[in-house]
């Protein structure tokens, strides 16, 4: 006989989990007691965070950086509700995490018992699936299914809510043979004839573009995307979540498209006659006004989630399947294509509309800070961002060369994502350099996780682009509300250097342009704890180019 708490530890180990992020509470003590055994035997690393939102983002950052399922744990009631933002963030960006929550005893569920929250109900709209475990003996199968569901098909968060009495009741365990999910069978292989049709449509196109999103990352399709691009010389643009799937320094790369994408990607889209969407969902941050988006283009749409195909635009060739599998099957059917006038046209656009920003002799420009970081790290760091201007500048100026290198909350746009997700990424990739590029506003939403980073000796770098503003909101007020700045001034919030030191992390500051590189170099030398770099930047720089929300390329602004 074992208890569900023991079954949980066994199930986690069967699922290959080597680390969990969380905070215990009354109803979780039996589970944490069993976790201790696994930790002491070295089978599991139990990372104590400082706020459950941090646990969820860490699990998310771990998952995005490694491709493995991230696990976070929270107690009933407020612990569980604190996870919600992190779960929703993972849901919107299709990140595989499993969230384990404690729940009050089954006999008092529904009575507004102490620390009871209906987390199963609260999270229903933001999970891929969820379970309330009613009997301990169900837990082994539920765990097996949960990890399968989280990581397969279109990945996403799965929640498992475990009442206190269930976790201690003994039962005779049965080892699950494998996932048992009769209603869930993701399509992996694409339809052969549709794939062949896609190859024909590609051959007919004069001005094709590859449009690559986060689905290509989760499917591990980077090699196939590159093969297809090079075989056909089709230029490539990505979404925010697709950054790095195709090397951004490649001659065929047009960088990121959309609201703050490169002008040349956006112009190329308008001239294109075929978009080949690979794991991308025609999100409004990419398309703007749908009626005016890519007006001449037909579309091939490859996605593992059938509900994304045809949701926003009508598609000539819909292919439901795993991006990597579908591309691998398609590539041999595709006719090679020499670089031609269309490539020349795209190169012209690139030359004509490079990313530009105003330089300054006595103020650090935020873009410059990112470019210096890029140079210093040889473009190899794992970059994790908050949400706001700094996020868009990072996307524009930190060119990535491999998938899982750029982690950012795209769908939900969650400020506070950067630091905890960077810590999670550092846990997943201990030998890599992990840099959070954060905003002064975003950082202050989850900065308590510095304590977690110090305790776990995680050498994450946090480069704060400190403009003393909720900069992105200020930018909209600047451009669209005649500079009536309302509720955006953060000046004088806190001394980030002293703050870092108070946590036992390293704190550094760069204020003048000539201090930037030496300060970053000093930061790179820190290897045993987090390092916060307060980069005081131009206060009123704006992210350009910009296509205002819901508008089209015709309304793109350069200043």
């Amino acid at each position, binding site marked *: 006989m074992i208890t569900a708490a023991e079954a949980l530890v066994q199930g986690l180990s069967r699922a290959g989990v080597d680390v969990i992020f969380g905070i215990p509470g009354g109803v979780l003590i039996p589970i944490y007691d069993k976790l201790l055994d696994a930790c002491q035997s070295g089978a599991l690393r139990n990372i104590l965070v400082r706020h459950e939102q941090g646990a969820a983002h860490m699990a998310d950052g771990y998952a995005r950086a490694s491709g493995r399922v991230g696990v976070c744990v929270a107690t009933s009631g407020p612990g569980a509700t604190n996870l919600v933002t992190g779960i929703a963030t993972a849901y919107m960006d299709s990140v595989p995490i499993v969230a384990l929550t404690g729940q009050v005893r089954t006999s008092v569920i529904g009575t507004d018992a102490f620390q009871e929250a209906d987390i*199963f*109900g609260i999270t*229903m*709209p933001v999970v*891929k*699936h*969820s379970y*309330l475990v*009613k009997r301990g003996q169900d837990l082994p199968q539920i765990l097996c299914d949960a990890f399968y*569901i989280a990581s397969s098909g279109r990945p996403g968060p799965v929640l498992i809510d475990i009442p206190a009495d269930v976790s201690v009741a003994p039962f005779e365990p049965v080892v699950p043979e494998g996932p048992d*999910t*009769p*209603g*869930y069978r993701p399509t992996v292989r694409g339809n052969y004839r549709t794939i062949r049709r896609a190859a024909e449509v590609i051959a007919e196109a004069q001005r094709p573009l590859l449009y690559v999103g986060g689905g290509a990352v989760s499917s591990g399709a980077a090699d196939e995307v590159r093969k297809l691009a090079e075989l056909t010389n089709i230029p490539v643009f990505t979404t925010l979540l697709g950054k790095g799937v195709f090397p951004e320094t490649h001659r065929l790369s047009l960088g990121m498209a959309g609201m703050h994408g490169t002008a040349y990607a956006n112009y190329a889209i308008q001239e294109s006659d075929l978009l080949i969407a690979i794991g991308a969902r025609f999100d409004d941050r990419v398309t703007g006004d749908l009626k005016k988006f890519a007006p001449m283009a037909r579309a091939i749409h490859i996605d593992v*989630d*059938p*509900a994304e195909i*045809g*949701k926003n635009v009508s598609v000539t060739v819909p292919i439901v399947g795993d991006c990597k599998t579908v591309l691998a099957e398609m590539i041999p059917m595709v006719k090679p294509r020499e670089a031609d006038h269309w490539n020349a046209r795209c190169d012209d656009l690139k030359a004509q509309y490079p990313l530009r920003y105003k330089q300054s002799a006595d103020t650090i420009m935020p873009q410059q800070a990112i470019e210096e970081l890029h140079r210093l790290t040889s473009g190899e760091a794992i970059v994790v961002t908050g949400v706001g201007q700094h996020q868009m500048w990072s996307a524009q100026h930190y060119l990535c060369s491999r998938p899982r290198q750029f982690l950012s909350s795209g769908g939900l746009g969650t400020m506070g994502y950067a630091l905890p997700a960077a810590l999670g990424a550092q846990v997943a990739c201990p030998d890599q350099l992990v840099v959070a590029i954060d905003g002064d506003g975003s950082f202050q939403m989850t900065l308590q996780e510095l304590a977690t980073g110090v305790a776990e000796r995680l050498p994450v770098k946090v480069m704060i682009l400190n403009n003393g503003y909720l900069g992105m909101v200020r930018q909209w007020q600047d451009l669209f509300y005649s500079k009536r700045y309302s509720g955006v001034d953060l000046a004088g919030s806190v001394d980030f250097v002293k703050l870092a030191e108070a946590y036992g992390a390293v704190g550094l500051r760069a204020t003048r342009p000539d201090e930037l590189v030496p300060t970053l170099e000093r930061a790179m030398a820190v290897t045993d704890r987090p390092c916060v770099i307060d980069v005081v930047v131009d206060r009123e720089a704006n992210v350009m180019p910009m296509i205002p929300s819901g508008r089209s390329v015709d309304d793109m602004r350069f200043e």
Partner: protein
Amino acid sequence: MTHTITAIVQDHPGVLARVAGLFARRGFNIASLSVNRTHRPGMSRMVICVDGDQLTLEQITKQLHKLVEVLKVWDHVDDPVVQRELALIKVDADARTRSEIFQIATIFRAQIVDVSDRTVTIECTGLTDKIDALVRMLEPFGIKETARTGRVILVRGFQDT
């Protein structure tokens, strides 16, 4: 336009909330809903009538398919089907009007299921239009209450629904 969708689901706790929540969140309008266990243990049948165009219908069925506990979904656009709704209608009736109400019920092949000195309760099965028509015919007598079910539907012949 109203579409009828059948979903066979695992009868887990919360599955109705999940389906209803999906409709609410994605802005799909449920016109009627019926849920019940099937003869197969562990499986329930949901029949959902929704308003919307072809594109909405396509999104709904795809989103329903994505729910892990949903085993099968049909949208019944091209199927030959038998479908029924049931209504109980309580009408004001006294000795003067009772027989006229009985006559109307007979024409609609509806049953009288209860009679009191001041009311008659009629049970009617059929499609929405037929029940609506009966209700209209009964309105002049004074309708006290109506209770109507959602639709149930099966594909005709050997084919499964």
